[in-house]
């Protein structure tokens, strides 16, 4: 009995020893696994290396106050972002003497995706030196060592050299306009092609007079700081004069207060020029609303109720162009439109009887005035057009040569010439 109990105890102790061995083995395995896991984690996200080649340079062709920070990210694979700090300005240091740096931006992964990174630092004082320091942000959120730049100071540029080609183009066009104005003054004969839409003004106003209905003139939805509105109001002068001569009622609902005032001036002057100042009715030229679709709602309703016999749309138009033109079409009005918004031209062409396309719209003012000075300016404009056509032809020829003789010396020369032209014209 005693021997049996001794063996049971021995067996139990042995079992406990075995369990202890297993437990120790499990703990050891867990420790090893944990160590390996930690080691793997550390290996996957090592401390990112610090930024290299940090430069701080003045942004060219600006009014000052802007510096550009450049850096190289040594290992984009272990970088998750970048922290940019700048030195405090004298005014900021006066308020807070303890701080030397202030964080200006914490950029994400995109900033370190490539080796070369840059950041535009704005609002920099132009009368004192500024420094920046950059730290690369690791994938685990740790920051690399900060790298500090040399001091830099933004400069104010007197001339934006990147816009030199445009300035030269403006000078060429302006000179050609002035030369043609001078030639026109000296009596040189000028031939300007007829613009059907402008010749149709008399017909449209005459039809409205015969039908005893109004003439509607819409000067676009932009303010007087838009050149299209000015061009539209110039045409309004001619339409108003014809309406005054025919004694037709002209209505001008406007979308802007200043346009209403300017339109009243134009129409009043046109009535004076027609010799019928007493027929001028200020109440026919009204301000409706600045809200685009509120204006459209008014015009649509007005057109359906009053059914004007002639509708003119001259100025800057956007989504409302087709709504207006289709409403005018549905009431059977003669419609003449003019705009320099390329995206709206197809709608006007589809729904109106006549359309002044782009440059015709701007030439209308000179065309309607009949003055030699102004007609000369249209001819001058043609020189600019010839210049553009020449550049397009040369560019097309060079690009074709470059494509046909790819790899050859002629093709390489043509390719570099095309690249130079692109650079010159800002392409």
């Amino acid at each position, binding site marked *: 009995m005693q021997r049996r109990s001794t063996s049971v105890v021995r067996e139990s102790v042995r079992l406990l020893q075995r369990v202890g061995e297993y437990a120790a083995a499990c703990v050891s395995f867990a420790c090893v696994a944990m160590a390996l896991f930690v080691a793997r984690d550390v290996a996957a996200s090592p401390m990112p290396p610090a930024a290299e080649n940090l430069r701080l340079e003045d942004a060219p062709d*600006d*009014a000052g106050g802007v510096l550009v920070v450049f850096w190289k990210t040594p290992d984009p694979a272990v970088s998750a972002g970048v922290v940019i700090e700048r030195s405090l300005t004298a005014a900021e240091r006066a308020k807070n003497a303890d701080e030397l740096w202030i964080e200006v931006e914490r950029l994400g992964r995109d900033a370190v995706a490539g080796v070369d990174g840059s950041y535009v630092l704005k609002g920099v004082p132009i009368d004192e030196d500024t420094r920046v320091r950059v730290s690369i942000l690791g994938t685990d959120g740790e920051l690399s060592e900060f790298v500090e730049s040399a001091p830099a100071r933004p400069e*104010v*540029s*007197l*001339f*934006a050299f990147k816009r030199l080609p*445009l*300035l030269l183009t*403006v000078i060429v*066009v302006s000179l050609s*306009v002035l030369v043609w*104005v001078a030639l026109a003054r000296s009596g040189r004969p000028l031939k300007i092609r007829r613009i059907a839409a402008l010749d149709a003004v008399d017909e449209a106003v005459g039809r409205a007079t015969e039908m005893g209905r109004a003439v509607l003139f819409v000067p676009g939805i932009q303010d007087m*700081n838009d050149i299209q509105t*000015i061009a539209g*109001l*110039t045409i309004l002068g001619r339409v108003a004069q014809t309406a005054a001569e025919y004694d037709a009622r002209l209505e001008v609902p406007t979308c*802007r*207060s*200043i346009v*209403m*005032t*300017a339109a009243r*001036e134009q129409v*009043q*002057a046109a009535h*004076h*020029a027609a010799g019928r100042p007493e027929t001028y009715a200020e109440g026919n030229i*009204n*301000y409706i609303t600045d809200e*685009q*679709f*509120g204006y*459209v*709602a008014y015009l649509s309703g007005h057109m359906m*109720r009053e059914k004007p016999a002639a509708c003119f749309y001259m100025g800057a138009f956007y989504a409302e162009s*087709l*709504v207006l*033109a*289709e409403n005018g*079409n549905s009431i059977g009005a003669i419609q003449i439109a003019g705009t*320099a918004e*390329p995206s709206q*031209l197809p*709608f006007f062409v*589809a*729904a109106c009887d006549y359309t002044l396309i*782009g*440059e015709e719209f*701007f*030439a209308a*003012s*000179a065309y309607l*005035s009949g003055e030699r000075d*102004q007609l000369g*300016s249209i001819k001058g*404009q043609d020189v*600019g*057009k010839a210049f*553009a056509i020449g550049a397009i032809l040369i560019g097309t020829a060079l690009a074709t040569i470059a494509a046909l003789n790819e790899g050859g010396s002629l093709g390489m020369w043509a390719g570099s010439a095309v690249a130079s032209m692109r650079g010159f014209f800002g392409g």
Partner: protein
Amino acid sequence: MLQRTIPLLILSASGLILILSYFSPITETWSEQVVSWFNILAGVAFVLGAGNLLAVNLEKISSKRPGWAYSAITLVSFGAMLVVGLSKWGAVPDAKHPDVHLAGSQDSTQAGYGWAYEYVLSPLTATMFALLAFYVASAAFRAFRAKNFEAILLLGTAFIILLVQIAAGAFLTNWIPEDSFFAFLRAESLKAIVTEVFQTAGMRAILIGIALGTAATSLRLILGIDRSALSKG
């Protein structure tokens, strides 16, 4: 005389400053000043517009002309928005100046002005804009009638674009091998040819004309050759 000369001088000076500031960054602040002048003028002119709006609608109501009820609604809405907007009713207090009611923001729908903008004006505007779809359909129906050569061209182009925008375009042309001579007949190629060659070429031609027209018109105005936009005094 002065009525035309002084506005012409202001116009010329403003125009030259804007051109100068585009090419010379040092004068950028001058152009900002000129733009501020215009904004001040436009702000003051708004009083004229509002006065005109009141006069026209009050006259319509007093003479009981047809549709006078709409004028009444216009004036009530105008007055309500003016009161709510100027009093900043329900404005969200500003974080820096929470005690100053007028410093609050009206952008959110918590403010009366923001609420009216978001839940009254925006739906009405969207409704008007949505009508555009029907106008496009009606204009397209009329423009695409093959009555002459140009209309046939327009119809053909529109047909190609409509076809390649839908699944049928790909379904009908996917059998053409991409590396064959006829690959240009595949839907995506046809679309690219129309939009990137013909459309881009035409649009650029129009844009060049517009740019030259704008430059010449601006020059005529700045130099006083075209005075039609000025008061005839």
